């Protein structure tokens, strides 16, 4: 190979120091404030205090299987059951309605995206005002002759309220993804199917569905990831995941375990281990969905996978 006179190999790819130099500032900061602390937490979660230091043990992982943990898992499933299909449906509906007119979609689509950018602290406060016993929604119900509903006091009603906020926040993003996928399909396909006498359902099933399948899968995974990130709306609506832990999810559990108890002296070490173990489990769950998500490129039509 080396003797080949025509092909000159890029002699021993020399190290590009500039590449490292450009990465360095971000990498150093990320290392100090993300990678090292996270690794530290993982080590924490894998050890327990023992005489003369800490000993390797899986005890923290054993200790998290409390009724509260399963309660939080159940709540997350309940939440996902409303949030995921709700956002997919809302996103699809918005995209479908905007498909007809380019002019209309230019600004309206962005409008639907806006809630995603408004900090949950602010929008959560506004939603809380509305859902309060003396809030706008109960006032409206009262005007309609119905009784007031304790939205934030009734156990099974709290998660649907949180889900409603999250749908409101997330539908715009899903709509953008769906709309791009729909736009990529020539309008004639549907018209041809209609001319051929395909009914509405069959047009949806055989023309629309295949073309947005990819977008739907990506949206589904994004929503499943976000299911595990929801914290702000729950905090702003209920403060502690109440009533009686009906709206406690894993992030809320970590927040309570890790912070509110961290300030209590003497209680620190164990709760740190528990919160670290919970964080590790949460990140691991999210990582599975992220790996799946990154396997599916978005652009429809051509085959993906690099």
């Amino acid at each position, binding site marked *: 190979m080396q003797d080949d006179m025509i092909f000159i190999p890029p002699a021993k790819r020399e190290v590009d120091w500039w590449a490292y130099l450009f990465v360095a500032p*971000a990498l150093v900061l990320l290392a100090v404030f993300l990678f090292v602390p996270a690794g530290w937490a993982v080590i924490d979660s894998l050890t327990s205090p023992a005489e003369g230091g800490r000993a390797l043990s899986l005890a923290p992982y054993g200790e998290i299987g409390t009724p509260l943990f399963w309660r939080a898992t159940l709540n997350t499933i309940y939440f996902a059951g409303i949030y995921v299909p709700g956002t997919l449906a809302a996103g699809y509906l918005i995209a479908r309605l905007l498909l007809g007119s380019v002019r209309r979609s230019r600004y309206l689509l962005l409008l639907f995206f806006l809630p995603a950018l408004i900090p949950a602290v602010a929008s959560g406060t506004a939603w809380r005002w509305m859902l309060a016993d003396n809030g706008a929604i109960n006032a409206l119900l009262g005007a309609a002759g119905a009784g007031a509903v304790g939205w934030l006091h009734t156990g099974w009603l709290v998660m649907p309220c949180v889900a409603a906020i999250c749908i409101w926040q997330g539908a715009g993003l899903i709509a953008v993804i769906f709309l791009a996928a729909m736009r990529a399909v020539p309008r004639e396909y549907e018209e041809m199917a209609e001319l051929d006498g395909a009914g509405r359902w069959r047009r949806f099933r055989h023309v629309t569905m295949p073309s947005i399948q990819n977008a739907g899968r990506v949206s589904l995974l994004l929503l499943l990831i976000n299911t595990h990130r929801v914290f702000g709306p729950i905090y*702003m609506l209920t403060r502690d995941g109440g009533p009686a832990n009906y709206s406690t999810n894993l992030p809320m559990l970590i927040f309570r375990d890790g912070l509110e108890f961290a300030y209590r002296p003497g209680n620190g070490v164990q709760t740190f281990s528990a919160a670290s173990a919970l964080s590790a489990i949460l990140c691991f769950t999210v990582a599975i969905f992220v790996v799946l998500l990154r396997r599916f490129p978005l652009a429809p039509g051509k085959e993906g996978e690099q």
Partner: protein
Amino acid sequence: MKPSPTPCRIARPCRLRRCLSALLLIFLAAAWFVPLYGCLYRAAGASESHEIDRPLINTLLVSLLVSGAAAALSTLTGAAAGYSISQKRFFGRSALYGALVGAMFFPPVAFIVPLFRITAALGIYDSLAALILPFSATAFAVVYMKVAFDRLPRDVLDAAKMDGLSEAAIFTRIAAPLTRSHLAALFGLQFLIVWGALAVPFAVVQSPGNYTLALRLAQAHDTAQFIPRREMLWLVGLVVAPAAVIFACKARIIVEGVIRSLVRHETQGS
């Protein structure tokens, strides 16, 4: 032979459907502003008057300083790192990118305990530095800029190299200016992320003097129960304001950039 009736058959339901869909769309768009009505309803429902005192302005200044500094830093570090990952090949590049993509999606709450401990260990707990530094390099910023630089035409950078520009000059004089709009959008996004951050500030500051607006609003809510004071209305307005401004200026590119960084696109490598 006979003129086919099909065009009519399609056209008629279409018009009706278009009307219906427009109505539905108007209804949906109005429904999207629902929280605004909630605020107005509250604002109208007379609240105990509460003077805007100096601390609120202090809080605003803290928020502005923290968000501005963190956004500027994360945009710079993100741009440099994103440029390197996008345009250069180095050892550990794809592993680093994979880790960053994962970290971008991880719930911020998962990092509150590590952040609490690292800020305590560094001796910056409960200071503005503890608010700024954790946000001064973010996985999202790096991924966002990597995706933006991926879409630069390769030839431009190669030509610059041929012409003998130094590596630093290629970045500062060619690549960065070409992605100006993305840099501005990223700055806006990062500003908003810090501006509205809840979990991380809770973990790294304690004294009210170091509260951001978001933190103060979150704290106000449990003392004020369901009766919002005028102060809370101000806080909500102040927290929302930059979101509205940034969105009005940069909406389109933000939407596009966010989706491109969250989801892998076909044209985009690993």
